[in-house]
């Protein structure tokens, strides 16, 4: 099997001096510093020889230290369990870099985001429109640069408008949003339709930026960010805090006690159960099957109560800190956990058995919203969306974290490529999650739940962590800094990767199917839109209402 050393050797023999530095900073995480003009050849070569999966790119402002910006392109070698981070340092005077989107389509959003937030201009990008920042954000103001104070409010420039795509000839435009009607979240889809058939679509989102990364980089300390990270998502918050904690622990080399790992695993799987049942309810609600919505949410409720009992809160558990967890699961509650999850298993199986033969479901879900394996790979989709298209990825297996390397479970993969396949993946995962929790409770060792954490975490270290959220793979990249706070904290939520395939799966479909097709990705807009400083948000909304009033 390929090792990090072999990857380094191959790159060094092929590119010689253009590889400036290659270092395995954390076990199985290879950081390679490449000369700027060698970026495209290196990525082409990697793509041809190993075809690693692109995760995300992140830009760091190190102008004060070295007068440069560092752009990191993260890749995953799934079978070999290796992270590869290609880093390029570019001059602050001319922050231009070749775009990799023509080679890897999945890098589209993340390059545009880097441009918006740090001001790294991707040359030859096929779609260089603004992505993350608000419409009226002034040009040339980059919030994630270090000279931008976290509480600065730039003046509004209402004349700025992000151009939407021109509709193809002979088509009509149907707007959905900006408040997405089904999921009650802000997103704007502009559908170009010919009759009932959708020809193309355009997406404008990121209406609910909260500037989390900026506050994490500039104001909060390591342990405060755990709670901030948990609030990135309203459904699967615990995965973000786990992912962040693991990334810091890996970077700093902090040993976490085994019991803490098991507790994290149990909480993560409880979260997966309730998230998947929630999704099932919403998905069938979208297609008007409210009986199943009621039943799946009824089944879900005991999990919430259980979490409340374990952690002290229904949803935001607040259990994670750097070095371990804050609350133990007392042995007295084991029986109750088993009782509750067994009841859920029984009831879920019953419901699955009842609805599997429901032909109205088949009509709405089968052969609708087809995401072919090829497109899914190109766009770098993750989680159930990818697994429903026959892609065997699951970071619980590929990049084990918490106690996942110690438990046995099956990765649910379906070959259908349609909404039905994605549904089946999620239902099977729910049942698997119950198995994992049972195993954990059986095997969980006694011992401390908090490891020893040094007074100050050393600066200049970096690490990546992937956590398999119910929606897919969340990625946190942490670079440690002075004053006991991270220098750079980069978050990529799973929907960020998945939502990029929406135009492909909507294309050719019917208007009536759009809500369920988008719903089948289990999108979580608040997750996706966690970054950039938008204190001017209220201002933007006011402007919209004024315009509307004038129109009326």
């Amino acid at each position, binding site marked *: 099997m390929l090792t990090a050393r072999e990857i380094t050797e191959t790159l060094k023999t092929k590119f010689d001096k253009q590889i400036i530095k290659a270092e395995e900073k954390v076990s199985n995480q290879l950081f390679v510093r490449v000369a700027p003009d060698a970026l495209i050849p290196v990525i082409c070569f990697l793509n041809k020889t190993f075809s690693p999966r692109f995760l995300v790119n992140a830009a760091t402002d190190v102008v004060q230290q070295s007068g440069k910006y560092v752009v990191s392109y993260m890749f995953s070698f799934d079978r070999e369990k290796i992270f590869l981070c290609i880093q390029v340092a570019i001059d602050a005077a001319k922050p231009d870099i070749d775009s990799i989107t023509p080679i890897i389509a999945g890098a589209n959003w993340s390059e545009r985001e880097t441009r918006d937030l740090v001001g790294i201009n991707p040359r030859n990008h096929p779609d260089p429109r603004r992505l993350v920042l608000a419409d009226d954000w002034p040009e040339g103001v980059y919030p994630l640069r270090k000279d931008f104070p976290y509480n600065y409010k730039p003046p509004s420039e209402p004349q700025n408008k992000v151009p939407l795509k021109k509709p193809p000839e002979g088509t009509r435009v149907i707007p959905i949003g900006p408040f997405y009607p089904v999921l009650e979240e802000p997103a704007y889809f502009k559908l170009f339709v010919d009759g009932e058939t959708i020809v193309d679509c355009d997406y404008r989102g990121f209406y609910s930026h909260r500037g989390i990364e900026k506050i994490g980089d500039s104001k909060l300390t390591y*342990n405060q960010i*755990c*709670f901030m990270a948990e609030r990135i998502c309203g459904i699967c918050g615990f995965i973000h805090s786990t992912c962040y904690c693991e990334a810091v622990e890996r970077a700093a080399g902090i040993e976490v006690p085994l019991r803490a790992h098991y507790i994290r695993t149990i909480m993560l799987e409880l979260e997966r159960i309730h998230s998947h049942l929630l999704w099932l309810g919403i998905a069938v609600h979208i297609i008007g099957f409210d009986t199943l919505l009621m039943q799946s949410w009824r089944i879900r409720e005991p999990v919430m109560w259980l979490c409340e009992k374990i952690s*002290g809160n229904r949803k935001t558990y*607040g259990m994670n800190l750097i070095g371990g967890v804050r609350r133990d699961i007392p042995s007295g509650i084991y029986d109750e956990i088993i009782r509750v999850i067994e009841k859920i298993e029984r009831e879920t199986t019953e419901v699955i058995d009842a609805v599997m033969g*429901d032909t109205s479901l088949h009509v709405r879900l089968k052969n609708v919203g087809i995401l072919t394996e090829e497109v899914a790979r190109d766009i770098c989709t993750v989680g159930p969306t990818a697994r429903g298209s026959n892609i065997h990825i699951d970071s619980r297996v590929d990049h084990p974290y918490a106690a996942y390397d110690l438990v046995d479970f099956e990765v649910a993969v379906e070959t259908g490529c349609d909404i039905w396949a994605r549904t089946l993946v999620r239902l099977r995962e729910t049942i698997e999650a119950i198995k994992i929790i049972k195993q954990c409770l059986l095997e969980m060792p006694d011992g401390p739940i908090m490891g020893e954490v040094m007074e100050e975490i050393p600066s200049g270290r970096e690490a990546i962590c992937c956590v398999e959220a119910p929606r897919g793979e969340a990625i946190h990249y942490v670079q440690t800094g002075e004053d006991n706070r991270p220098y750079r904290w980069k978050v990529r939520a799973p929907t960020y990767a998945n939502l990029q395939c929406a135009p492909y799966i909507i294309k050719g479909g019917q208007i009536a199917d759009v809500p369920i097709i988008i719903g089948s990705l289990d999108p979580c807009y608040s997750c996706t839109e966690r970054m950039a400083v938008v204190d001017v948000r209220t201002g933007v909304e006011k402007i919209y209402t004024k315009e509307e009033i004038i129109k009326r």
Partner: protein
Amino acid sequence: MFISKLKQVLICLKAGRVTLPYPYEPSPPPEGFRGKLKVDIDRCTGCAGCANVCPPGAIEVTDIGKDWRRIQFNLTNCISCGRCEEVCPEKAVKLTDKFELSTNTKEDLTVTIEIYMDTCQRCARCFKPEHPLDKMMVTGFRQ
């Protein structure tokens, strides 16, 4: 199709009514619930440890004059994480099981305490005395 629908009907009938009668009947949260916080002013020494760890910055510390410190808990910002309870060396902060916090007046969700501190002879700012007994020795303590 027909059998499937029949099964669904059975599941619904079997489940019956599951909603709780809350708010007509109280619904007490389980033990260990993290609700509204309570401060025991007699125990607080004004060390401001809670303010340092508070993730949303809901605890404000201001020195009013050279020997009085005001600590204000803005529960409107509180996320009930319980970090203050965890780090308090005197066990002065406790999370209760109260969760019905909605109110018309913001003052209901603000807890302000003022603590008499020692005065530093060099910078004239207030600080925590080394020993709780030292505090009582300072003139003006019983004001």
